Structures are given as structure tokens and as C-alpha cells.
């Protein structure tokens, strides 16, 4: 039987719909999530179906969005809070990092805080400085949080369903450039749920491993076809979940290829790819024929609005191919 084709934002919406149907503790809150159905339409039609209580338009105040989600979680509800852009999650940073992430630990296990905070992330859509940031490293740094950053419609649906069912707080970042980039067949119900912390093998290869996630998956795939024309076969691993991340799959690949580059959209310094690179350098030293390399965005404060500047900031297949070639030829 053919499954319906969905783009990433439709898959997000389907996951929310199915989980709200399955479990009446699941509720949604955020700015414009109700009547408008979200600025990217990730919650379109959900308020009409489930009512204004379970799909709640909040005041324009991110700290209280996170705090109210936490209050609901402490009372047994499963809140999926939307931050309109990942860039706007910072007013909620104290609630997320000091409160939500530490509830279980600081109460010695007496309290738990299962909730999901969704946010569109990343650039390439003329969003400029404050609609393009990739802040995953901030959240990956925090024990107590889980962080998911999917790159396909099926992964987005399967991992969002898993995040809603998870007993711990999950930051769920959705690459907005991919919201309507591709459609694929996406399953329904229980069969669609994916485990967190398991990477996917995007492309098998023998010469070099590229570890990536989010929008950079698609860019790395294009870069890999260019290298393939030169006889260099890149194995691509999409982490999908960043905390916890699937280090074992990466190690197995590097033991085969002997070379690894980490491709990520965020600023190079202190980005999550830097953690991946450090861990793999430590664990794979004996297997490596080349230094572990990072291919990342430059260390400028954020993505500019002007097209030439945006282009200069963003990684593209050419830049990634150049970086991968350097590792392959080292």
C-alpha cells in the first residue's frame, strides 16, 4: 500500500495530530499556533479539531511559554510548546536550562518534566540575523535535555512522536529551509515512531565519512555526488538526534573509511560539530588516516539579510565538496 507523501512541515503537523488523537494529555501552546495554525503552518487545523484549550495561543512571551509548559508537565499534561523561531528561544533560556532541564536532577527523581519545545532552526531562507540561527549547541550542552534535529519528513514525524512520548524534556529543532523542500512517503501511527539517539546511514561509502545533521544532510549529499565523479566515495551519516548522539555508528564508519569530516550549519567555534569532532578524535585515533575536520559556518554573529552575504555565510555543495576533498586527499 502506498503511503501518503508529505513534506517536513506536514509531517510535523501529522505527528502532532496523531499524538493528540492518541493521548488526550497532549496539548500545544505557543505564539500564533491556534487560529493561524503557526507561522509555518505546523499546527494548521489543530485548534479547529482539538479546541482552544488543547491548542492554546499564548501571549508573546517565550519565558512564560516554557514556564507554562513546565507547569503543565508537572501536573501530568504533555505540552508541546512552539518557539516561533529558535532565535526567539533565548528569552526562555533560564526556564529551559535552569528549570526544565534540572527538575528531575534537583528533586532527586521526585519530579519529572516531560515536554517538547519545538522551534524552526537554521538559515538559507532570507531570514537574516534573527530568523536563521542554529542554536543547537547551547541546548546540547545541558544534561537533562534531549535534542533532536531531523532532516527528512519521515524522521521529523517519527522522532517528534518519540519526543512527545519521552519521559524527559526534548528540544525539537526543525530546519525551516527543509519545511517544503522535499516530499516523501511517511507512515502513520505506531509504525512511524523512530527511536531517539539512532543515526541514519544516508549514503554508503568507502573513502571518507561525513557526519552531519539537519539541512546540511542534503548539502552533503550533493557534495558527495561531486566527489563520486572523481572516484571518492563518501559515507554520510545523519545524526538526527544530537543529545544523545549515536557515536557508535560514527565509529564503525570511521573504522572502515579512516577519515571523517563533521558538516554543520552553525558557527564553527563551539558548535555541536566541534563536540562530535572531539569525541571521534578521542575514540578513533588509531583508525584515522587524516585529522578530524570540521566544515561549518564562519564565526560571524549571525546570517546577514543581503543575498550575497547570506550566500557567503551558508555552506553549499561547493564549499562542502572542497572541505571533503581536503580530508580525502590528506
Amino acid at each position: 500500500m502506498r503511503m501518503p507523501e508529505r513534506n517536513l512541515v506536514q509531517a510535523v503537523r501529522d505527528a502532532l495530530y496523531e499524538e493528540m488523537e492518541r493521548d488526550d494529555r497532549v496539548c500545544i501552546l505557543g505564539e500564533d499556533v491556534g487560529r493561524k495554525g503557526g507561522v509555518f503552518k505546523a499546527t494548521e487545523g489543530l485548534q479547529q479539531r482539538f479546541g482552544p484549550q488543547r491548542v492554546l495561543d499564548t501571549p508573546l512571551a517565550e519565558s512564560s511559554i516554557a514556564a507554562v509548559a513546565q507547569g503543565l508537565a508537572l501536573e501530568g499534561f504533555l505540552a508541546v510548546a512552539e518557539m516561533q523561531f529558535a532565535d526567539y528561544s533565548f528569552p526562555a533560556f533560564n526556564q529551559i536550562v535552569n528549570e526544565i532541564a534540572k527538575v528531575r536532577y534537583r528533586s532527586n527523581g521526585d519530579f519529572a518534566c516531560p515536554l517538547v519545545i519545538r522551534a524552526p532552526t537554521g538559515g538559507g531562507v532570507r531570514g537574516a540575523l534573527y530568523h536563521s540561527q542554529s542554536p543547537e549547541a547551547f541546548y546540547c550542552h545541558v544534561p537533562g535535555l534531549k535534542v533532536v534535529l531531523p532532516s527528512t519528513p519521515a524522521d521529523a514525524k517519527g522522532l517528534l512522536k518519540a519526543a512527545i512520548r519521552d519521559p524527559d524534556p526534548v528540544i525539537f529543532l526543525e530546519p525551516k529551509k527543509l519545511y517544503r523542500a522535499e516530499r516523501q512517503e511517511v507512515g502513520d501511527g505506531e509504525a512511524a515512531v523512530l527511536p531517539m539517539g539512532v543515526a541514519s546511514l544516508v549514503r554508503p561509502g568507502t573513502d571518507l565519512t561525513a557526519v552531519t545533521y539537519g539541512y546540511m544532510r542534503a548539502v552533503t549529499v550533493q557534495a558527495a555526488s561531486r566527489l563520486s565523479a572523481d572516484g571518492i566515495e563518501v559515507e554520510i551519516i545523519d545524526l538526527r538526534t544530537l543529545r544523545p548522539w549515536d557515536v557508535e555508528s560514527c565509529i564503525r564508519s570511521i573504522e572502515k573509511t579512516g577519515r571523517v569530516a563533521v558538516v554543520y550549519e552553525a558557527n564553527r567555534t563551539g558548535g555541536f560539530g566541534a563536540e562530535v569532532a572531539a569525541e571521534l578524535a578521542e575514540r578513533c585515533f588509531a583508525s584515522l588516516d587524516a585529522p578530524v575536520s570540521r566544515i561549518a559556518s564562519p564565526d560571524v554573529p549571525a546570517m546577514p539579510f543581503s543575498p550575497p552575504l547570506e550566500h557567503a555565510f551558508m555552506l553549499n555543495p561547493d564549499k562542502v565538496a572542497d572541505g571533503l576533498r581536503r580530508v580525502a586527499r590528506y
Partner: protein
Amino acid sequence: MPTDDRTLTREQVLDAYRTVLRARTLDDRRFVLNRAGKLAFIISPRGHEVAQVAAITALQPGGDRFCLYYRNFAAALACGFTPEELMLSAFARAADPSSGGRQTPGNFGSRRRGVIIGSSTVGPQIPKAAGIGLALKWKAEGALCYVSFGEGATSQGDFHEGLNFAAIHRCPVIFFCENNRWAISVPQPLQVAGPGVAERAAGYGIPGVRVHGDDFFAVHAAVRQAAERARAGDGPSLIEAEVLRLQSHSTDDDQRAYRDAVELAAEAARDPIPRMREALMQRGWLTAEADASLREEVNRDVERATESAEAAADPEPGSLGRHVYADA
């Protein structure tokens, strides 16, 4: 403002008085233990005890939810924490029911008592209480959420966000500000613009009242009225209790360095505990003999609690990584 004599029994008020005495005696003991090098850090409720216990006495511990802040030592006792439990927390022992010795004393939490685990940043519990209030409104079981904080916390954006959200959604929440006029060393005129905190309620369209925090019956009446309003579905209230900070901010602070000595002496003479005792005696609910024997009883309780907590086991170093996630 009604005095609330008619809604309170003698037993209830004497029980509250015992809790107030316990808080003071425990706190005095903690202070000595701190100066003896046995307790690393405490935050004293000295001067706030009567207001805290009066507020909790107007509510339903075990049924309602309580988001307390770090000065709520007496409120925690009123919510059902025992002297020994609070001493376990002071000594950071494994059996500390709030956090197993992980947090500094003053971050109270107990799921079975409805005391929501606190943290040490200022004000985040205020919008959290709005969220708990929203959930309680949905559950419609008649429970409410009480959240307390100092006047310093009202400078935080979370104060505005919490009151705004709770007022919009008519959440059953009582916002209880314990205004002691000092946020560590910063006095109220540098913290709060306008006449005070209570007036801010008008901006949210909710009741805001200011009460004398040393008047047990007045505080009880204000909280009782706010509770009736919350349980009737009429939404949140803001109460500002004027209290005295008779001790420094914490054991790491010495307020004599930045407060006027004459003012400190004048405040010490206005200690709310003797005032509560006099009020009870005037009503014929307490005699000097009964008071003396109550104090002896409390001293013995505190002695036992201290000995037992000091002898209790520390957390195992191997437990450091436990409860980071559900599966660890």
C-alpha cells in the same frame, strides 16, 4: 479587612504558632551550626515566619500546590515538612526529601505534599505557577497554586509574564509577595517604582492587596479571600505582605554593612512572633505557662531533629549521575 477569628479555631491558630516557633528555633540552631562550621549556607526566614505560616494555614497542604522560594522555611514547615527533614536538607544528607542533598537548603520540594521543587534563580516559579494553575483549572478539582517570592523578584520579567498569563486565563493562583524592602543590599526605592507591589495588580485586572505581614489574622484573611476567589473560578490575586528582614540575606551576608544600625534595632523590636503571642494571649487562647511548655517542646523537637540529621548518611558519591534522565 475581617480579622478571620470566625474562620479559625483555637487549635488551628495554636498549631500555626507552634510552627512559627519551630521555624524560629530551627533557624536559630542552623545559624549556630553555620557559625560552628557545620552548615555551609542557610537563608533565614527571620521576620517572615508569621506571614508565611498564616498564608499556608489559609490553604490546603496536600491538596493545593505550593511554589515556594528560598526564604520560605516557615512555609515549608506549614506545608508539612518536619524539623528533621529540614535539618537533613541543611546538612545536605542523602535523606533530604527535597533533593537528597543536591540543592542548597531553601529549595523545597515534595511531590506528595504538592510542594513543587524550587530552584535558586529569582522569579522563575512565578510563570511556572501560572502553568500549574492552568492545569489545575483544566482538572477542575478545586485545587489552587500558591506562589511566593520577595519584592526583588517582582523586578524580573517572569513576574510580569506570570501574572499576565494567569490573569488572561483566570488561573487559580495566589501570588504572594513577601516584601521585606531589601533584595540583599538593594532597598525597595531602587527596586520597585511606584508605591509598592500590590498596585501592579491593577495592570492585570486582578485584585491586589497589601497586608501587615506581622498580623497573623490579617494575612490569613487576605489569603483566604484570594483562595475563595481562585476556587470559584474568578482567577488569580496578588498579595503583598509587608515583613521585616530581621536577619541578613544569607549566612554569607552581613546586613550591618549596608543598613542603618538604628533602623535594624527598631526592626528587631518589632519582631512579629511576640506580637502573635500577645494576640493569642489577649484572646485567652494561650497562657504564659502554656507558652513556656510549648517552647520547651519545640526546643526538644529541634534538638532531636538536629542530632538525627547530623548523624544521617551523606549521599553516595556514586549517585552523582543518577536522575539526569528517566533511565539513569
